[in-house]
C-alpha cells in the first residue's frame, strides 16, 4: 500500500457543547476517490472545513504528505496543493467566469505582489484559467457574469475555480447539490475524469453518484466515523443501513 496523502488523527471540532466532529482518524490514499456520506448534520462539512483550514480543530491533528498541517490557514493549505469546493456556492458573483478562474489561476504565481505590469499579460495564468473553464464545461460562458448564470452552472464554476489552482487533492462538498439531472450527469463524468489524475475526497448525498464514482466510502453519524469500506461493503452493511437509512426514515 502507498503512503497516505492525507491523514487525520483523532480529529475533533467542538461548537460550544456540540461535538460536530469527534475522534475522526482516517487515511486517504493517493489516487483514490474516498466518499464521505452521512445524514444531515453528521459533521461532513465541518470535517472538510478542518481539512481545508477554514476551521481550527479543537482536537487531534492533520498530516498532508507527512507534514503536520494542523491549524494552518486556508491559503497555506491551498498552496500545498489542496483545493476545495464549497457546499454553499462560493464564487465572485460580479466577476465573469473567466475572471473567477483567472484569480484562482493567478494564485499559483510565486507572488501576486506585482503592482505595475498588467495581469492580463501573464500567459501561463490565462492558459490555466481557460483550461479550467473548458474542463468544468463552461468554455462557452467565458464572458458571462457569474451571478447571471443558473445555479447549476455556478456549481460548475465552483469546480472550475478549484481546478484552476491545480490541486493534487480535491475536497468536494456536495458538488452535485441543486443540479438538474443533465448537469449532474455531466459533472459525474467530469469527476470520473478528474479521478484519473487526482485524489478526491467527496461528500455527496446522491447515492447513485457515490456508488458510481467512489472507491472507498466512510459513513459518518453524529460527528463520528461509523464505518469505512468498499462500495460493496458499505452497500451491504446492516450497521450502515440501520444507522444511516434509519435516520432518513425518521426524517421522512
Amino acid at each position, binding site marked *: 500500500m502507498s503512503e497516505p496523502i492525507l491523514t487525520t488523527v483523532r480529529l475533533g471540532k467542538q461548537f460550544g457543547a456540540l461535538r460536530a466532529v469527534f475522534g475522526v482518524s482516517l487515511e486517504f490514499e493517493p489516487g483514490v476517490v474516498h466518499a464521505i456520506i452521512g445524514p444531515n448534520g453528521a459533521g461532513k462539512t465541518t470535517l472538510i472545513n478542518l481539512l*481545508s483550514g*477554514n476551521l481550527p480543530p479543537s482536537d487531534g491533528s492533520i498530516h498532508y504528505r507527512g507534514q503536520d498541517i494542523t491549524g494552518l*490557514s*486556508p*491559503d*497555506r493549505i*491551498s*498552496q500545498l496543493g489542496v483545493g*476545495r469546493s*464549497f457546499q454553499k456556492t*462560493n*464564487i*465572485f*458573483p*460580479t*466577476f465573469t467566469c473567466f*475572471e473567477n478562474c*483567472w*484569480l*484562482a489561476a*493567478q*494564485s*499559483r*504565481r510565486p507572488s*501576486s*505582489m*506585482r*503592482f*505595475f*505590469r*498588467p*495581469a*492580463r499579460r*501573464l500567459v501561463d495564468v490565462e492558459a490555466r484559467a481557460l483550461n479550467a473553464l473548458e474542463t468544468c464545461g463552461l468554455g462557452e460562458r467565458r464572458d458571462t457574469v457569474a451571478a447571471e448564470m443558473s445555479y447549476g452552472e455556478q456549481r460548475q464554476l465552483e469546480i472550475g*475555480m478549484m481546478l484552476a*489552482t491545480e490541486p493534487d487533492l480535491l475536497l468536494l462538498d456536495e458538488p452535485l447539490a441543486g443540479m438538474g439531472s443533465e448537469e449532474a450527469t455531466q459533472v459525474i463524468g467530469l469527476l470520473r475524469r478528474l479521478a484519473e489524475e487526482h485524489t478526491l475526497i467527496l461528500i455527496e448525498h446522491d447515492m447513485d453518484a457515490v456508488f458510481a464514482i467512489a472507491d472507498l466510502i466512510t459513513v459518518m453519524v453524529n460527528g463520528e466515523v461509523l464505518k469505512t469500506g468498499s462500495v460493496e461493503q458499505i452497500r451491504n452493511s446492516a450497521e450502515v443501513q440501520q444507522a444511516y437509512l434509519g435516520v432518513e426514515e425518521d426524517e421522512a
Partner: protein
Amino acid sequence: MFRTSLTTNLILICLLVVLAALPPFLGIYYGNMVTRLMILGIFAMSLDLLIGFTGLVSFGHAAFFGLSGYILGIVMMDTETASIYWVLPACLGVTALASLVIGWFSVRTSGIYFIMITLAFAQMLFYFFNENTALGGSDGMFIFAKPTLAIGSWNPIDFEDHHTFYYVVLVSLILSYLGLRRLLNAPFGQVIQGIRTNEDRTRALGFATRRYKLVSFIIAGTLAGFAGFLEAMHTSIISPAHLGWHESGNVMMTVILGGIGTLHGPVLGAFAFGFLHDWLQDVTEHPTLYMGIFVIAVVLFLPRGIAGLPADIARWLRRKPPGDGGSPP
C-alpha cells in the same frame, strides 16, 4: 478587471482639457479653489482604493493626509530652504510607516471594528498634535517656506507661483489616477478586488488576504500623504483639523457622492462637493444643512454616485419614449 467605458473615457479627457485650459480664466480665488479640489480628488481616490476596491471602510483616512502636512511643517520649521528631493520622501516615508503600523492592527479586524479602530488611531494622532504646543496646539502651524526643486541656482518649477502649482497638482492628479488604474489591473489589483468581492473565497484560493489588505492600506495611506503634502504646500498651514474625524468623514462622503469603486468618481465628487458648498455659502446661511439634503438625494437617487450618472441617463433615455419603435432584444 478595472475598465471604463468609451463614453467615460471621452468625458474624462474633455474634463481634463478644460482643467488644463482653465487657469488664465479663473482668477486667484477660483484658481486656488480648483487647485484645492484637485488635491482633495487625489485624497478621495486614495480612499476609494480602500473602500471601493479592497472593501476596507476606513474612517481615519485623514490621519495620513494631516500627518504628512505636519511632517512638512516640522521639517520647514527652522529652515529657509529645503530641497524637495528629501523633504517629499520624508513626508511620504513617515506616512507609509504610520500606515504600516495602523494598518497592521486594523486589518486584523473587519466590518464595524475596522471602522472603529481606524477612527481611534486617527483620533490619537489628532490629540497628539492638538495638545502639542511646540507644534502650535489646536491652532496648528504656518509653513513659511516651501521646499524647492532647485538644483544649485537652477529651479525648473517654482512652487510659489500659483499658476505653476496648479499644473503641478493637475499632473499629480493625472499620474495618481493612471498609477492607480495600472495598479488595479496588475496582479495585485486583481487580488484586492477579489478580497472586496469575497474575501473568504480569495483566501481559499491561496492568497494570504491579510497581507494584501495591509499593502493596500499602506499604498492608500501614502497616497493620502501625498495629497496632504500638496495641501500643506498649497495653503501653507497645517492644523489638527486636517487629521480629525470631520475631515475623514468629508472625504468618505466625497467618495460615496462621486461613486464608490469608480476611481474617477471621487474626483468628480470632490468638485461637486466643493462647488456646491461654495455656491451654497453665497445663497444661504446654512450651507451645511443643504449639503446634507444634497448628499441624501444623491444616495437615494444615484446609488452609483455622480460617476454612474451617464449610465443612469442613458438607461433613462432608452426607457423614456414608449412605443417609439422600442428596442427589440
